[in-house]
């Protein structure tokens, strides 16, 4: 059985994960001398949107100069899957919290870890693909050896644009959920150990008495 505080933490993790449906998970911002107001796109659980309604179109329009593919959210399968995956994970966390079954907590923690690593790897792979697989034949601007992969996290100069990539609110919620899950597992383990020690102590005392 999970201790109460672990169950509360798991429920909180589930609620935080629900926040990923409301807030963007990651955002990539571009700024250049002639874009003082900046351009930005937000990666959401099921789509990619511009910070303002026209940002994505304007980013695509700029990307045609370097032969980059248009970013078409509808063609990215992962974005169609992600809502179900996150919902399932959150459900699993809730189930673990509700039933208090230790095995469910472990399964959830494992799935969450796999999801986080796979998600980041996949995002990196997409950015690599967009940045490297260019239509060189029709690219208007060709800089030998230049690729245009935005950073996974942090800042990078791409020609006249400074690209900055950071987790957005939804992404921070996901990390926080992972942290709470870790804490829940930790408490579950320490509480179990403590119980075992206590039982052992009791056994030692009672055993001694019996011996006496």
């Amino acid at each position: 059985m999970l201790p109460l505080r672990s169950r509360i933490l798991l429920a909180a993790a589930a609620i935080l994960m629900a926040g990923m449906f409301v807030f963007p998970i990651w955002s990539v911002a571009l700024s250049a001398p002639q874009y003082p107001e900046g351009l930005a796109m937000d990666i959401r659980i099921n789509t990619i949107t511009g910070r303002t309604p026209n940002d994505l179109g304007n980013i695509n329009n700029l990307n045609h100069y370097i032969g980059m593919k248009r970013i078409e959210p509808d063609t990215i399968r992962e974005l169609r899957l992600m809502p179900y995956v996150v919902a399932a994970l959150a459900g699993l966390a809730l189930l673990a919290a509700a039933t208090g079954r230790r095995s469910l907590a472990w399964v959830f923690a494992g799935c969450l870890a796999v999801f986080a690593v796979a998600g980041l790897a996949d995002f990196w792979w997409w950015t690599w693909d967009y940045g490297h697989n260019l239509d060189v034949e029709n690219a208007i601007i060709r800089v030998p050896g230049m690729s245009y992969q935005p950073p996974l996290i942090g800042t990078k100069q791409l020609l006249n644009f400074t690209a900055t990539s950071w987790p957005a609110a939804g992404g921070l919620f996901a990390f926080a959920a992972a942290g709470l899950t870790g804490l829940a597992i930790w408490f579950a383990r320490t509480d179990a150990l403590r119980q075992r020690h206590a039982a052992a102590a009791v056994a030692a005392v009672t055993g001694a008495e019996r011996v006496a």
Partner: protein
Amino acid sequence: MTSSRRTRWHACALAGLLVAAAACGPARPNTSMAGASDAANRVYVAPGAKDEFYAFMSGGFSGQVSVYGLPSGRLLKVIPVFAQNPENGYGYNVETKALLNSSFGNIPWDDTHHPSLSQTDGAHDGRWLFINANNTPRFARIDLATFETVETIEVPNTGGNHGAPFVTENSEYLIGATRFSVPIPQADVAISDRASKFKGTISFVKANEAGKMDIAFQLLVPGIDYDLGRPGKGPSHGWAFFTSYNTEQAFTKLEVNASKNDYDYIAAVNWKALEACAAGGKARSWPARYAHNVMSHTTHQATTEFKTAVNVIDPKDCAGSIYYLPTPKSPHGVDIDPTGEYIVGGGKLATVIPVHSFSKMMKAIEEKAFEKDVEGIPVLAYAKVMAGEVQNPGLGPLHNEFDDKGCAYTSVFISSEIVKWCFSDFKVVDRVPTYYSIGHLMVPGGDTKKPYGKYVVAMNKITKDRYLGTGPELTQAGQLYDISGAKMKLLLDFPLIGEPHYAQAIDANLLKDKETKFFTLADNAHPWATKREQDAGISRQGKTVHVKMTAIRSHFAPDNIEGVQVGDTVLFHVTNLEQDWDVPHGFAAMGNWSDAELLVMPGQTRTLTWIPKYPGVYPFYCTDFCSALHQEMMGYVRVSPAGRAVALQANVPRPAAAPPAAGKR
């Protein structure tokens, strides 16, 4: 003021020369640099910083409105209104041409005088700017989100639409008056019959709904010359006041013959009474023909409706609708102070500035203190309506604007100065020279209930030696003065466009966050709009060829056109697909002899009419530098001899195949 200056303009007065001779100008300016660095600091808007005020200057004979930043005096934009503007195709292209329609046809030029910002409760609300056309009487509405002319309306039964289009305190009406009386309705009469046959009108134009300007009613008035006007405010709200000159009703050599009477009139018009009379069936519907033109921001096209009747009210049928206040002598401006109590005349040939009191006027009306009547219009006794006369105002006082501290600033043309005086004692407290021959002047918010009272801008008719010379035609210019202290202080000279008759300025905060940055492509309802490249194309209707074209950095679709013949008229309907700020595309085709270029804003559609004269292959190109590949933004149109059957074709890109969903790896 120095005694030498006083002597100088007294000498001018004695000379009686009503010309802006340099000899009668102010003393040569002291060109020492004392205080220059302070003035420079006051007007310096550092790179990247923004001005405090938008100033809208009339272009006068340029027919336009120019927008300046204050205090820097930097030109921000010229808004085309009543004149064609080849720079952006206004008045040439199919979409905007209709804004220049009138009962006289499509008019390429007019003369704009008085910008007037819309008001709510007597203060600027930042919705619209109105301006008049003086020559062929019209009014225009400029939208202050787009800084574009969106509506024009012709005013029938009027000659010289000068006392216009000042707005009432909630923008209910724009007022207008006949500066040059004419036969009303127009008729073929001898000019020498002026006194008996000519009339004037005072017009009230409904203005508080965009796209719905309408001549609410016109008051038929005796045929003298009504010069300028201002609506009342506060207690005098519901009234409008108009100066008049030529009560002599001269019709030749007016400069002498219209300057004989010691008193002309300020007409006080009770428009609330006129409203009631119109509602009570006292107005007569006269046949008339006048154009009302409206630009739609959804179809991006202006359309014209000709109206065929107008409501005219005879003062005889509407008692109490108009009174005359005697005012010395050929008054030019009439201005109402922020409290709405004082009616200040600018007696351009008078030796005083006459100030009437609205409350005294109402009392005089109540007591029937009439001197006489003119064609049935009561003339109130001068002594009964006077609040005071400002002595020693200089020579040729014209216009007044007000600050927020109970003082007035009067422009004085012949002695070329601004005179400051206050309502507390009607005494001149300060005067400052202008270079040269000031006409109008403007305090930001100076005609409202809430003047900002920080600057006054002089608009001068003569600049002579103030700038590097440019041949016979010199710029007319503005001068910016600080009025925040006890003494007016000259800060800046800056050239203006055309002839700046009048200007109004608004706090930049009221406009800067509501600008339209581009038009939403999805909302573009232009019948020939092309919203995606694959929808571009070409079609023929008899001798007219329509090309639906898109522009986006940095190519046109289509960019190769064939099948056009000599004798065809080609209409290039160009839609700018950009959805970002500051990315207009231009369009021009070689030999576009009937049109100027197009300048198409993002999300907008504009149409160039191109009538080829000779067979050949002609380039068209983007005229507004749009990206690093701007030079490449061009195309060709092939013109075949008349009757030669070349297939009509335009290379339109096929829609890009959607990338396979799983094709990324």
